[in-house]
Every structure is written in structure tokens, then in C-alpha cells.
């Protein structure tokens, strides 16, 4: 460690070890159920018990050969991609409005825009079902898309808004001043600047939609998404196939979230050494 000298002043080995143990235990607590599911998905035994049986891919094979699972996955991916794109577009618009304009009632506008995720999903799901069935949109993929966009757009907005708040407000005006119309400035300055956050928002909203169960359960009808299908399996029988699906869903979501994280923390950007050595 390069900061050994400064850090050693008031450091105690016992405290260090305790803190490390605390972190390890916290993560263990969070990830143990997922890890268990992961381990048992490769176990040949019918019931999850210890000692483990043999390593086996039979549950994955069973899942892969089930047309219902494929149908659920197709629905989930279809919904997830569209929700990601639409929610990110809406979130970007809302974030840009906040960045660019000062207007009466802006606080209310922001509060309303960020509200949906704070509503309990069961209530939101019921409300969606009641509303969408009234306008004859309930029970198909479109209804899931609409419902998911409602809960995902605020996430996209929050992410993109944070990025825009880091932007020098003179940048856009500088682009206009150099001959860019408002649309050109949007395309050549605002969007390039917000790009990492836009992709980050895209991946996060996809992951949220991919995992979301409660609302999808209310409104999906016959076009069940994968999490809804999983519930169906559970109600019929407890099968290690659930572990296989769970592992797959977890890996997919984590991949999306990690991709978003890399984009948002700028680790994906080019390394930028300091400027001290020049001039």
C-alpha cells in the first residue's frame, strides 16, 4: 500500500481484522442463500441436503428442455430490452428538463418524477391491473412493459441527473455559441457527456425489469415473465430446477449491474494521467 506511512499513525491490527471480519460476515449473510441455491443447482440429489451428491448439470438440462421456461425467458428479455430503452429515454428527458430549466413547481415535478419506486409494489401492481384492464391493455406483454417503465424510469432519471449535475453548465451554452443549434448541442455535447450514465441507466433498468415479480404477476396474464414462471414451478413442486433458473437470473442481473457500475464509476473510460509534468 502506498499510503502505509500516513495510515499507520493511528491504526490498530485488531481493529483492522475486526473490520475485515465484519465486512466478510455482512457479505456472507447477504449472499449465503444465493450461494446455496447456486451450489444445489449443480447437485444431483432431488432434495437440497448435505452431504452433497454428485456434480450434475441435469437440472440445467431439464430447464433447457422445458418450452415453458424458454417462453418465459423470451417474454422477460423482450420486455426487459424495451423497458430499458423506453425508461432510459424518459428518464433522460426528465433529467435534462431538471438540468436545463428553472420553473415554478420544479420541486413538485421532481418529487412526482421520483415517486413510483416508493409505492409498495403490491399496491402499484393492483392499481396497474385495475387501470390497464379498464383500458383493455391488461394481460399481455405490453401491459408488463407499461408497468415496468413506470417503476424503471425514475431510476434512469436519478442516474442521468447525477451525471448532468457534474457537467459545467457553460458547456451547452459554449456549443450554441460555437454555432450549434439546440438539437446539435444535444447531440454533440449533452448526449456524449451523459453517455456513460445513459448506458448505465439502460443496464440498471433492464436488470430491474428482468427481476421484477410482483407487478408482472398482476398484469402479465398469459405472457408470464420468468420470475412469474418460477412461482408457478414452486406452487406445483419444489424442484432443483428452481435453483438452476435462480442462478441464471442472478448471473444475468449481476452482469447488467456490474456493467452499469463500470460505466458509472468511469473505470471503463481511458486512463487519464495528471497534467503536472507538462509546461
Amino acid at each position: 500500500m502506498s499510503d502505509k506511512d500516513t495510515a499507520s499513525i493511528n491504526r490498530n491490527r485488531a481493529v483492522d481484522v475486526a473490520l475485515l471480519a465484519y465486512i466478510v460476515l455482512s457479505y456472507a449473510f447477504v449472499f449465503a442463500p444465493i450461494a446455496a441455491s447456486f451450489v444445489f443447482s449443480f447437485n444431483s440429489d432431488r432434495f437440497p441436503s448435505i452431504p452433497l451428491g454428485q456434480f450434475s448439470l441435469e437440472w440445467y438440462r431439464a430447464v433447457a428442455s422445458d418450452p415453458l421456461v424458454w417462453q418465459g425467458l423470451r417474454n422477460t428479455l423482450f420486455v426487459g430490452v424495451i423497458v430499458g430503452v423506453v425508461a432510459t429515454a424518459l428518464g433522460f428527458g426528465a433529467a435534462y428538463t431538471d438540468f436545463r430549466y428553472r420553473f415554478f413547481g420544479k420541486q413538485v415535478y421532481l418529487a412526482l418524477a421520483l415517486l413510483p419506486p416508493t409505492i409498495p409494489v403490491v399496491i402499484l401492481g393492483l392499481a396497474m391491473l385495475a387501470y390497464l384492464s379498464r383500458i383493455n391493455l391488461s394481460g399481455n406483454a405490453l401491459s408488463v412493459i407499461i408497468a415496468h417503465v413506470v417503476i424503471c424510469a425514475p431510476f434512469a432519471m436519478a442516474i442521468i441527473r447525477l451525471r448532468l449535475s457534474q457537467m459545467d453548465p457553460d458547456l451547452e451554452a459554449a456549443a450554441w455559441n460555437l454555432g450549434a443549434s439546440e438539437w446539435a448541442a444535444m447531440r454533440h455535447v449533452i448526449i456524449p457527456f451523459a453517455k456513460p450514465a445513459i448506458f448505465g441507466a439502460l443496464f440498471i433498468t433492464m436488470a430491474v425489469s428482468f427481476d421484477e415479480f410482483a407487478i408482472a404477476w398482476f398484469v402479465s396474464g398469459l405472457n408470464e415473465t420468468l420470475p412469474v414462471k418460477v412461482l408457478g414451478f414452486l406452487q406445483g413442486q419444489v424442484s432443483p430446477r428452481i435453483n438452476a433458473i435462480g442462478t441464471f437470473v442472478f448471473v444475468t442481473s449481476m452482469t447488467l449491474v456490474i456493467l452499469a457500475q463500470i460505466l458509472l464509476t468511469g473505470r471503463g473510460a481511458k486512463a487519464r494521467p495528471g497534467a503536472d509534468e507538462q509546461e
Partner: protein
Amino acid sequence: MKNDTLVSFEGVVKRFGEFVAVQRMDFEIGKGEFLAIMGSSGCGKTTTLRMLAGLEAPSEGVIRLSGKPINDLPTWSRDTPMVWQSLALFPFLNVIENVEFALKMRGVGKAERRRKAEQWLDRMQITEFASRNISQLSGGQRQRVALARSLVVEPEILLLDEPLSALDAALKVRMQSVLKNLQRETGITFVYVTHSQSEAFSMADRVVIMSRGKIEQIGTPKEIYRTPRTRFVAGFLGSSNMFTGKVSGSDGGVVTLDTPAGALRLSAAGMPQPVAAGQTATLTVLDTKTDLAVTPPSGRVNTLPVRMIGEEFIGATATIYLETADGQEIRIQKSHEDLANLPLQIGQELVAHWSYEDGHLVMEE
């Protein structure tokens, strides 16, 4: 309108709600001129520049560019590029892409805009940094990129909003000569907003001094320095001693002013308007034109008994701080040789004096 006028402000007013940022402004900027707009923060200088750039719309009045009113022209159709205080370089573009930006927005072809951008990089001596990221550049290099980015469209006018404020003192001085030379070589009109007197006076052909949204004085640096038109200007420049009082008489080309420090006289020659007895006015005299002696000299000079209260040495000159009988602080600036024969000690009684011709009268508004 004269042929060599590039920009004119005609009765321009800018209000933000109740607040008047710029009060009725009438002035012209000549072609190829280096004009500095100077004042303390909040005086309306940046608002004036932003109106010219089209980033703020005047509440009243007309701004003309080459004779045509530009009030309703959006900033992107104006050709009034600006160098920002924050520089506002695009962080997601490298150096040469930043410089090409304005050409790209004007639909200039790829090869042509690369060629022009390279010319300007060369001119600003930053060719070697063409493919660098902005964050990899030092302050002075960024400054040059910002200049190249604005000048690449070869505009008639360049607006600069305190562009040097972020640089350290030595670099500031170097960039001042870069800017001055650039302006002379290109013949482009520069409008330079600053709060720094040294920047304004060392570079500009003419200086506009603003206070509280109003123009206090427009003139060459020499004119403003020698004959400040208002009390504010004299005080703002801080290079004059000032005595406020009432005109008590005018006789034989000499005006007498009654001040708390005593009766002071000055030559009426060169005064813009005749003065009447009873008017409130301020006599200003440059601290470099104020002399110091042990015994009062005779002739057409004002003499003022003073007591020395401090001294300060800066390079070749010294500043001596003095207090008049009525408690006002004044000072003189002289070379060390001029002061060599004086008994300079704190508390020493001396006589400050200056000729009638060196005094200058500023009438109260």
C-alpha cells in the same frame, strides 16, 4: 454611423425581474479594436458581454453588429465566439476535436476542418497536444485550446470573459502578451471583460469602466488614468489622492476648492465645463504626481502639512503613507532616488505638495 464601427449598443437595458443589471447603455466598438470592459463583480460587465454573444436578450434597446440589429438572432447564428471564464472545453473530445467543433457545426468537410484546426494549433503552439485529452493539459495549454477553438471560424469579433482569472501570476502576464499579439496580428476585434485593472490597462486600446450597471467612463487607458471622469473611477483605480469639497471661487484660470484638509487650487485649463461656486467637487491628483518636502515650496503649488504613518517598498518605487491634519490618509509613490534626501521616519512632519496643473476636478453627479 461611422464605417469603422463594428458593434453599437443603443439604449440597451437589461433587467432580471426587478433587478436592473444594465442601465441604458450607449457605446460603440470599432473594427479591430481591443476593448476592455472593467468593473467589480456584479457591475453588469459579463451581462453586457452575454448580450453581445446572444446568451441574454436585452430588455430594451438595440445591439447592432456591422450595422444590422442582432437582438433576435440566436447565439448559434451570430459568429460571436466567446472564451469562457471556465473555458468550457468539451471534456469528451480531444484537443483537435475541440478546435474542429465550430467548423463541424457549420458543416465544413472533414479534411478542410482538420486542416484549419491544425493551422490554429500550430499558431497557438499546441500542435504536439492535438490528440491529448483536455484533462491532460495544464492551465496555459487549455487557455490556448480555448482560443484556437473560438478563432478557428475566423470571426470578426472575439468575446473574452475573464479568461485569465484561473492562471497564476507569471502565466497571466505571459498570456496577456499572447493575447495582445494575437489581436494585433489577426486584426480581430477583442472585447475583454475583466475585473483586473492591470489586464485591462496593459492590453486594451480603450477601456469601459462600469459600476452598478452603468458606464462610468470610456477612454484610452491613459485618458482614464490621467483624467478620471467620476469619483467612482478615481477611487476604483486607486492611484489618486482625492479631496472632496465645495468650489469657493474661480479666478484667473484658477479654481479654488474648500476641503476639510484646507483650500486647494487647480488650473481651470482643460476642464470640460465651467464650474460655479458652491458646487460639490472632488480634486484628484495622481500619487506619482504628489511630492514631498520638509519646507513648503512656493509658486503655483498646493501645500498640505502631513505626518508620515507608513512606508512600503515595491521594487524600484516606494509608497509613503501620510496623514493630513484632518485625519485623511493620502500617499505618494516615488523612486528611491527622489526620496533619498528626506527624513523618512514614522511620525515625521512633512509637507505634501503638487502644482495647480497636476490637479484634476471631478464634479459630483
